[in-house]
């Protein structure tokens, strides 16, 4: 099901059970721990304008309903504050199943092959990470605000990195 709520920056494609609260970071029927997510979880990235991604989302929705793709999210509008001028779709999956998911994407015309792990994404948003620092620079934040945001990022990420055996819990978006 496509969840398009205007107050969210993202449009999601969820299985109804996941929309109702079932975890989506699951492998072989078991919810993944933080350590497993850091090791295996990631996403294929698809870039394009929103109309193209809307069409692709509609075509991929049946695969989400069939649980062949765990979930998808994509930008409602380009993230201009990060210098983007097109939208990004993230097609989530476990690394161990990424070839199956890529085959689906390729069958729908995706050619640029780019897989990013959650660990890589978190590293981009860590204190000192290039995206977090760029975000704060673009917003013109003062040094105290920047430090507060770095501290918040540090705390959020430490819940994942410092608790490897705890079941992964995604952040609200």
């Amino acid at each position, binding site marked *: 099901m496509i969840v398009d709520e205007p107050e969210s920056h993202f449009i999601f494609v969820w299985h109804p059970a996941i929309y109702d609260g079932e975890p989506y970071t699951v492998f072989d029927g078991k919810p993944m721990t933080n350590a497993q997510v850091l090791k295996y979880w990631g996403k294929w990235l698809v870039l394009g304008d929103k109309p193209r991604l809307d069409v692709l989302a509609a075509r991929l929705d049946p695969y989400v309903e069939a649980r062949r793709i765990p979930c998808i999210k994509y930008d409602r509008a380009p993230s201009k504050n990060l210098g983007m001028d097109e939208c990004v779709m993230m097609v989530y999956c476990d690394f161990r199943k990424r070839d199956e998911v890529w085959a689906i994407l390729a069958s729908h015309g995706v050619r640029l092959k780019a*897989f990013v792990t959650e660990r890589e994404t978190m590293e981009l948003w860590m204190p000192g990470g290039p995206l977090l620092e760029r975000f704060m620079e673009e917003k013109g934040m003062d040094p105290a605000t920047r430090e507060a945001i770095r501290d918040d990022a540090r705390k959020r990420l430490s819940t994942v990195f410092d608790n490897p055996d705890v079941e992964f819990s995604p952040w609200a978006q």
Partner: protein
Amino acid sequence: MPVAVYIPGSLRNWFGGADEATATGSTVGECLADLARSHPSFDGRLNEPGGGIATLLIFVNGDNVMKDRGLETPVSEGDTIGIIPLAAGG
């Protein structure tokens, strides 16, 4: 050896509007240098202040080369290279 390079819409102005290019080299770095020779806009972007490889994510067959050997990552005929803005990885 030639490899196919895929380019998203936001970077196509560096490549004359093309969504695909061919580069020759035995490593990612050699392929990017080859692309820069044939696409002056890409060359200019790589060398401008605030630009360069640090603003991009480069993939070989879907894998981020920074997890491998970076620009020294080897490529073979039939491999594909993908180039996207760093911000898209977040």
